């Protein structure tokens, strides 16, 4: 054990010294090259297996990158709105995105009203950004969200204060995906906490209900939950009563996500030492005070990674609403290709949708890392 520990200061010194020695030996031009050479030798060719891996990776890059760059950038057609130009150029047809981006982003929403979902999304995303900062985590945030949802709803539906009514069957694209995912996450989260607490409850009836719910929902794919929500559920409703399709999908996503999240939360609860519960009990805190002030703040911090993992899953899973005929982002990307002359360029359309999904998911992943660092600062035991 002691050998590597003793070595490491030496190694650190070597890292520091090498560029410095290079500086002394080769002033000006040679400096960067020598440092690069040193870095390369240390990081890429330090042993036989490393050397082999480096060479294989290089070969793959050489084999893969040039054609990709050639297709995506060099031979690509960016503008023009004419599929024939694309076919002649032979590269990627980003002109498809230029032509179809409004349909992909907003679906069947009336064309001259696209500013409405755009503004709604901007407000929505700003509210999400603000909610990401722990400094804003207080009761006022709930009020802000109530306003955001009201204004967002007014912009999307309209029907009064000078906006024409747009029924939600015509919503689509990115706003729809964002609504399904955000409301799915935001509403599933508190529900999952209740389920996790219920599963650890002392009352057998509550425990049984929560266990049953979690196990049943986890045992069923989301596709079938959505399918049931859209096809079977209306069969049980009395004649004449219909519940909006979008609402049914939204509820399905919330209920499904909550079951998975509940298990992540339960993992956090199980990791809190018994002494924390006892100290809270001994101070006379009631059950909800104990959980809300002492146990959950600690438990949730521990399970940020699996929770965000579930958020990311939920975000991507909203694309399954295609099976009940809602026009989310992935569906609009696909539908844009039903225009015959553009049909060969499906890769471009999916790459575009994929990049949008990636942007949001990557943000969530980085945010989870930031949050973990931020919340654990100072509290490490």
């Amino acid at each position, binding site marked *: 054990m002691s050998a590597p520990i003793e070595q490491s200061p030496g190694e650190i010194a070597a890292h520091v010294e090498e560029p410095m020695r290079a500086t002394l030996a080769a002033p000006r031009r040679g400096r960067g090259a020598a440092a690069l050479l040193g870095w390369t030798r240390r990081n890429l060719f330090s042993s036989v297996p490393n050397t082999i891996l480096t060479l294989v990776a290089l070969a793959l890059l050489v084999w893969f990158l040039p054609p990709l760059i050639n297709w995506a950038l060099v031979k690509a057609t960016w503008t023009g709105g004419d599929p024939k130009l694309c076919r002649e150029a032979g590269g990627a047809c980003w002109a498809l995105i230029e032509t179809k981006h409004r349909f992909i982003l907003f679906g069947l929403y009336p064309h001259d009203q696209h500013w409405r979902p755009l503004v709604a999304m901007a407000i929505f995303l700003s509210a999400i950004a603000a909610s990401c900062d722990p400094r804003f985590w207080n009761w006022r945030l709930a009020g802000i969200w109530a306003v955001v949802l009201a204004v967002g709803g007014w912009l999307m539906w309209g029907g009064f204060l000078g906006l024409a009514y747009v029924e939600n069957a015509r919503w689509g694209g990115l706003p729809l995906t964002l609504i399904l995912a955000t409301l799915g996450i935001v509403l599933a989260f508190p529900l999952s906490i209740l389920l996790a607490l219920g599963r650890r409850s002392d009352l057998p009836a509550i425990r049984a209900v929560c266990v049953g719910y979690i196990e049943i929902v986890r045992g069923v794919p989301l596709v079938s939950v959505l399918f049931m929500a859209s096809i079977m559920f209306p069969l049980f409703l009395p004649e004449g009563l219909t519940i909006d399709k979008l609402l049914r999908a939204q509820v399905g996503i919330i209920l499904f996500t909550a079951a998975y999240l509940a298990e992540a939360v339960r993992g956090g609860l199980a990791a809190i*030492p018994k002494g*924390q519960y006892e100290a809270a009990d*001994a101070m*006379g*805190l009631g059950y909800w005070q104990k959980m809300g*002030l*002492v146990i959950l703040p600690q438990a949730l911090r521990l399970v940020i990674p699996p929770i965000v993992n579930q958020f990311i899953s939920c975000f991507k899973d909203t694309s399954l609403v295609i099976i009940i005929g809602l026009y989310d982002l992935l569906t609009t990307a696909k539908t844009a290709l039903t225009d015959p002359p553009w049909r060969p360029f499906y890769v471009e359309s999916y790459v575009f949708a994929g990049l949008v999904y990636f942007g949001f998911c990557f943000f969530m992943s980085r945010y989870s890392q930031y949050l973990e660092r931020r919340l654990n600062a*100072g509290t490490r035991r």
Partner: protein
Amino acid sequence: MANDPVILLDKVNKWYGEFHVLKDIDLAVGKGEKVVICGPSGSGKSTVIRCINRLEEHQRGRIVVDGVELTSDIRSIDAIRRKVGMVFQSFNLFPHLTVIENLTLAPLWVKKTPLKQAQETAMRYLERVKIPEQAHKYPGQLSGGQQQRVAIARALCLKPDIMLFDEPTSALDPEMIKEVLDVMVELAGEGMTMVCVTHEMGFARTVADSMVFMAEGVIVEKAPPKEFFAAPKSERTRQFLSQIIGH
């Protein structure tokens, strides 16, 4: 009335499944009395004091704290927990809250004290345990001795009539034990009713009004410290004392 015990255990019995942990425990603690409980590991010392504030449930017998009998009625449990503060071997501070937040949490939420007043009280108790300068640190940034003093201050912030200590110094390095015991001695001097599980016999000698020796779920002997240390009645007590004082 002055002679009425504030804590009364009357033939208290407790089982963990088949295992009979507490057997007919009788104990009366008067107002302002300091009781030190000692005994070998596993004898049921922790279980006894954890029954007093209902962290553990007893199955037979009566426990009466300041005139309120402990039953499974939530109200009786709440009433008693408001009067009884507890300090644990492993501190059990809340690691996600700063020291001052640890101290004000229960006053704010249980007693509904205004924030300003709760903070003032908290600072006063932090001064009494001699670490006001640590108020805005997290527990993880303090030494064990400091953490235990914060835990004592936290219990005191609820203005309890009775303090329970379960081996408060057993998890501490020797050089920190004294700083915690000093705080406890001072507290005893102010007339707090204390029930303390500890093997710090020096502390017991100076502070205790009565010593209780437990073994295998039974109170073997209860006596004032002078008698207890000089002339223990039972052979079992003598053996135990020679072991821990011999070290």
